[in-house]
């Protein structure tokens, strides 16, 4: 995976943003902690210094100067683990005891703890302590001598350094974590996007049967994949339809075209009687009309399959439409010695194209009348069945053999037994296309004898 791409993913950008925000929060938090800790340490030091001054003053008062000096000396040689420095000056400013080399200039002996700058030259050379602001406290003893206790900041500094170090470590770890998370997340997203891209590339190269594999996590990527797969399904179906149309046109339109062409060619081979020309032209006109009808039907099917409609989709008064068509065909059926019964429930409406629905129903009626024998009985029914509109057209004609029932919906498919009757084999293809477009479940049922075409409006 390319690092440049990774850094352009939404996930890694989000991760970086969050890492920054997180770092800021941690810094502020630790800063507050540091500030509070320092204050606490300072306060502790101040209390310690005061107590120490108190203790030494007490020794001086109870046991006398000698003992005080001893105590200071003892502290001085104890290794100064708590890194305290002492100074006892006589009234004349003479140093009597203590590790500190001299009195810090300007420091007042008023028992108040203050931070005072200590130069290096006040600290004995063998001590590791360095210059800095040291908290210190001093008092004037009963004899006028001045006693000072100071705390080397080394200890406090150590603590501060430790806290700062910890803060830096925590910060580094949290930013690292945020970045790692972002990277992992970005990689996961990229892997799945890459999978989708790979399929899309294959599809655009012509392999239309490829589909995106779902991860099974049922997340937004699966959702996207599902929709893309549905889209691909539709595209493949449309393309297959188009391919089929092209094949069909090649097969079924070439023949009549060849017929027309041959007839004209042969007629033009020599001079003929005017009556002959008229006859040929009339035949040609009939053929071209037939070609036109086939062509129109093919286009209509393609249009219905593509579902490309703008204006003509709306609420259709299905009951009205069926009655109108039914009555139109009723007379036609009677004239052919067949009987068409109508049982149309009133008030049925559907969403769709009136034009296409009318065309489809009329194709079914055409077929029923065409294929039932004399005295055939045909019934067109429409009713509301558990919230679904069901339209059925049943006849007592020869029916369709079970193994042919799916095939009859394909373009140009005609049953062997119907070759002698006129027709282009497109009627049921259009019915199927219109049914699919209107989300109608189309079923062919055997009545032994007879055929029932059932249309169930699913929405």
């Amino acid at each position, binding site marked *: 995976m390319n690092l440049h791409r990774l850094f352009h993913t939404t996930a890694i950008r989000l991760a970086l943003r969050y890492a920054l925000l997180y770092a800021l929060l941690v810094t502020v938090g630790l800063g507050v902690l540091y500030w509070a800790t320092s204050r606490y340490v300072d306060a502790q030091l101040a209390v310690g210094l005061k107590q120490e001054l108190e203790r030494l003053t007490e020794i001086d008062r109870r046991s006398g100067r000698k003992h005080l000096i001893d105590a200071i000396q003892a502290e001085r040689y104890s290794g100064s683990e708590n890194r305290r420095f002492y100074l006892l000056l006589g009234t004349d400013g003479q140093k009597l005891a203590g590790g500190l080399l001299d009195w810090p200039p300007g420091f007042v002996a008023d028992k108040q703890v203050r931070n005072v700058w200590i130069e290096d030259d006040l600290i004995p050379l063998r001590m590791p302590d360095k210059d800095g602001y040291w908290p210190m406290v001093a008092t004037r003893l009963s004899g006028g001598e001045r006693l000072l206790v100071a705390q080397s900041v080394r200890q406090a500094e150590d603590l501060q350094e430790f806290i700062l170090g910890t803060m830096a470590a925590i910060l580094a770890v949290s930013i690292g974590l945020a970045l790692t998370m972002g990277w992992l997340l970005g990689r996961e997203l990229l892997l799945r996007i890459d999978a989708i891209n790979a399929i899309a590339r294959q599809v655009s190269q012509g392999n239309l049967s490829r589909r995106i594999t779902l991860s099974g996590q049922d997340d937004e990527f699966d959702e996207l994949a599902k929709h893309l797969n549905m889209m691909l399904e539709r595209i493949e179906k449309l393309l297959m339809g188009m391919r089929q149309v092209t094949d069909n046109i090649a097969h079924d339109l070439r023949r009549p075209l060849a017929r027309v062409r041959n007839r004209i060619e042969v007629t033009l081979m020599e001079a003929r009687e005017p009556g002959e020309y008229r006859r040929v032209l009339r035949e040609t006109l009939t053929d071209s*009309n037939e070609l036109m009808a086939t062509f*129109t039907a093919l286009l209509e099917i393609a249009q219905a399959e593509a579902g490309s409609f*703008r204006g003509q989709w709306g609420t259709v008064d299905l009951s009205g439409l069926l009655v109108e068509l039914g009555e139109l065909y009723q*007379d036609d059926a009677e004239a052919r010695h067949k009987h068409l019964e109508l049982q149309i429930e009133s008030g049925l409406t559907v969403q769709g194209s009136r*034009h296409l629905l009318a*065309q489809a129903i009329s194709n079914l009626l055409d077929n029923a009348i065409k294929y039932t024998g004399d005295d055939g009985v045909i019934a067109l029914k429409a009713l509301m069945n558990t919230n679904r509109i069901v339209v059925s057209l049943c006849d007592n004609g020869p029916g369709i053999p079970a193994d042919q029932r799916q095939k009859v919906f394909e373009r140009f498919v005609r049953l062997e037994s119907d070759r002698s009757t006129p027709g282009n084999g497109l009627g049921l293809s259009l019915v199927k296309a219109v049914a699919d477009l209107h989300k109608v479940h189309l079923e062919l049922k055997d009545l032994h004898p007879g055929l029932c075409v059932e249309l169930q409006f699913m929405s």
Partner: protein
Amino acid sequence: MRILLIEDDQSAAKYLEKGLAESGHIVDYAADGEDGLHLALTGKYDVLVVDRMLPKRDGLSIIRMLRADKNKTPVLVLSALGEVDDRVDGLRAGGDDYLVKPYAFVELLARLDALVRRGRERDDSGHLRVADLELDLVKHKVVRAGRVIHLQPKELRLLEYLMRHAGQVITRTMLLEQVWDFQFDPRTSVIDTQISRLRAKIDKGFSRSLLHTIRGVGYKLDESA
């Protein structure tokens, strides 16, 4: 009648011009949208035949310009675009009829005739009359030579349309569109059956038949023939 034909397909236009002229009409011809619009605005025509897709200016825009100019000359739109939506677009632009290519010449002729003649109106008492056939549009009553004829509602509408266009040839598709509001081609026999039923009611038993079949074209309700 005077017809302006605006069509860019020259060979199609030639035959159309010839056919219309042989049918007794005077035809002016324009091969592109600009010329067509110019002729339509300056000349006086009974009807315009306008192809939808033309060079320089498309057919629908010509119609819009004419209508904006308060020119009410009926227009028949010819188009290779045959979907229902295209038809709706054509009529919405101000066209009066729409014919999809390829069409039968007789269909075009019949429709032009219907557009120009517009159909006759009922008389003051709400009657349509053709010879001795009388249709009372208010009471929905049909009387021929004093004999009352009972018709179904659809038959009444069919008869009304035929009577309004008496003397004109009406094609099957025109009947389907106007009387049934269907824009598709059912088997021709469906309309033929309706016509024979109507004929049985209005012509049977009378010495003169009024409802004639014009072979290969359609029907005509006529008192003269």
